[in-house]
């Protein structure tokens, strides 16, 4: 579903943010992307969703190149940034309609999706209010509903659990599993190692812009915890 091949991002002044990153996310995968702050997670994610230009390599989604066929990629992808900056002076429902319009979702389909996910995240009653009056968690929930509205083949999330209440976090995890069981794929970054360990079937660890460990969760961990493995590989790479 998502193939990142020799991805390299160099900033002005020849500073490498990411170098030769290779990741493969198959349909049905929940892929966790782990690393320190500033390791290159968000830079990679933003390149995957077509927000950030990159220097070298190739990123394809369902066989379409992010660089040369961006629209094909975007139509089947959904992205939730770490701090969802969504239009403050729209109401929740206005925002969701905007997103649904962008993906060309029919009235019936969007109503069903909004109802389903709005109820799951217990936010339906607040959708008539302006987003500016929402808490961080509520904005996050609206952004998540917006991302799910077109049933994406690839869901990309940057720190999705930050700001969510425990129930909403549980709901999101269930939704991620449901999406994958239906053939979609999830690629997300997180600092919550326990969640990644339990939720992901594949994991990659990035440090200083390079992948230092990657693979099927069970193979990577063996009989250790993800926290132990993370600290071990990060320290060994010094």
């Amino acid at each position, binding site marked *: 579903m998502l193939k990142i091949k020799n991805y390299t991002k160099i900033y002005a002044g020849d500073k490498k943010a990411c170098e030769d990153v290779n990741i493969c996310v198959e349909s049905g995968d929940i892929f966790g992307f782990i690393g320190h702050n500033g390791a290159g997670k968000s830079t990679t994610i933003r390149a995957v969703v*077509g927000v950030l230009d990159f220097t070298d390599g190739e990123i394809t989604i369902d066989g379409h190149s992010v660089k040369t066929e*961006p629209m094909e990629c975007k139509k089947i992808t959904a992205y939730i940034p770490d701090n969802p900056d969504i239009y403050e002076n729209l109401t929740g429902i*206005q925002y969701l309609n905007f997103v649904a319009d962008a993906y060309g979702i029919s009235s019936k389909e969007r109503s069903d999706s909004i109802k389903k996910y709005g109820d799951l995240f217990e936010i339906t009653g607040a959708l008539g209010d302006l987003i500016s009056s929402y808490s961080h968690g509520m904005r996050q929930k609206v952004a998540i509903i917006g991302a799910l509205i077109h049933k994406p083949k690839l869901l990309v999330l940057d720190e999705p659990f930050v700001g969510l209440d425990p129930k909403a976090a549980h709901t999101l995890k269930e939704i991620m599993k449901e999406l994958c069981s239906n053939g979609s794929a999830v690629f997300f970054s997180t600092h919550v190692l326990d969640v990644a360990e339990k939720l992901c079937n594949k994991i990659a660890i990035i440090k200083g812009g390079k992948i230092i460990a990657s693979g099927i969760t069970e193979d990577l961990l063996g009989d250790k915890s993800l926290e132990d493995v993370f600290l071990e590989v990060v320290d060994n790479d010094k």
Partner: protein
Amino acid sequence: MTSNTMLLLKTLLKSTSDINVLKFSKDKAKRRYATNSLIGQGVLSIVILIYATLLSVSLAKSNQATIIPGLCAFILIVMPFMFTLFKANGYLFGFKEYDMIMSMPFSVKSIVSAKFLYMYIKSMPMYVFVSLSMLIGYAVGGCLNVGSFIQWIIMTLLIPVIPMVIATALGALVVKIGAGFKYKNIVQAVLIAILILPVFFGRFFVENTMRNDELDAVMNSLADNVNSTYAYIPVAKWFSEAVNDGVLLSFLLVVSFSILIYVLFIIILSKFYRRMNSQLSASAKNTKYELTSQKQKSMVKSIAFKEFKRMTGSSTYLLNAGLGQVMTFIMSIALLFVKPEVVISTMLQGAPIEASMVFPAIPILFYFFLGMVPTTCCSPSLEGKNYWIIQTLPIDPMDDNKGKILYNLCISVPFGIFATVAASICFKPSIIDAISSVIAIISLCVFATIFGLRSGLKHRRLDWENEIEVIKQGMAVSMYIIPHMISGMIMMPLVVIISKYLHSVAATMLILSLIAWVLTALSWKGVKKYTPSH
């Protein structure tokens, strides 16, 4: 225009519309702010309408109605060019929802088009008001017919596209150049200022060359100026020919040129748009910093420093709040090298006024520029989502105010003193007169700072989408700038008259200072009233 462009445009307009807030917000303060904002925009539109109508009717009454179309086209080119240069980069690059929009199935072309059209629609009412006012004058002159009316309206909607495209292209070029520098915001602001200043001073000189005693002479001078612009701005000529002479080709030239330049611009910018935003939104982190001993500062100084970093961290803010200082500095340097007669002849062309009469107006002139957009006016709103930091730290809100005041004084008073000293070297007044002028400019800078803060606090708006909304179009700035401009225009001739009557520049300056301090005291009461208690 694609349906995606329309969808984005509609959403952008809705998301920044006061009407949406009035319709859906349950927050009384927000609703009040939205109402005031709508009223403010209405008042500003009426002022523009009256001013432009008076100008065009005066032209019509002095049998100069045929130059009105050319003048109208000239205004429709200069105004959008200036305003777009100030705000295009804020609208098109590095905006908050960039990631969200770019990750959705919108083509870059749709995004660029929607952003440009949004900017166009937001500023269009002002240009339409100016044009309609001119149209009234043209009708009073008895030149209007159905054909010219229709052409006028169509061309009014299309002509601003041309200067807006040129200004946006220049803005984009500045972003491209600036992105390669470490201090990209400062480089961008300086480059934009370099582009704006010739237009601004050019306009200043054009306006002043028109100031003669006789109305007819003024109108003839205006006619000459308008005619001479045709050589440099063919669009103004086409507008005039189409409306005055019914030349269909000229009308078609305006229409086709506007559309062509817009389409070309969108195609070209779309090719570089993502790369440019990538350069702006992401940069390499410096990991080589070594911690050295840190200095303790007072709370007020610390807040002033924060204000300094905020200003230099945003090219839009730096440009809008710093342009007055740049202009004052340039004029000050010029004053050091020219004779007073040259200054007077430039400012008042041929008017029988002596240097001693002009000198008292100098501090007002500099106050006019230095006080155009005080940082105290924007800063309370610019806290935006970071406001919680000030709210939760043990900072007395009045200390926050004092820090903001200190910063604005630091960037206005030194320029004011330097400019007044330069004017004193040029005009050679007595020492007492020079000192009293320096006191006057300091007093006026203090007034502008405190009055700006009063407006900034009273009309504070924290939930903006784009900082340009509170820097350029905010209620706080609008409610400050209108009285500032009116008071400047009234005070300038007033001090000349008072000085002539009293035969003393020093006494006039002291009266001016006294008035400034009284107004400062009144504004300070407002500052205290509108300062929130954390």
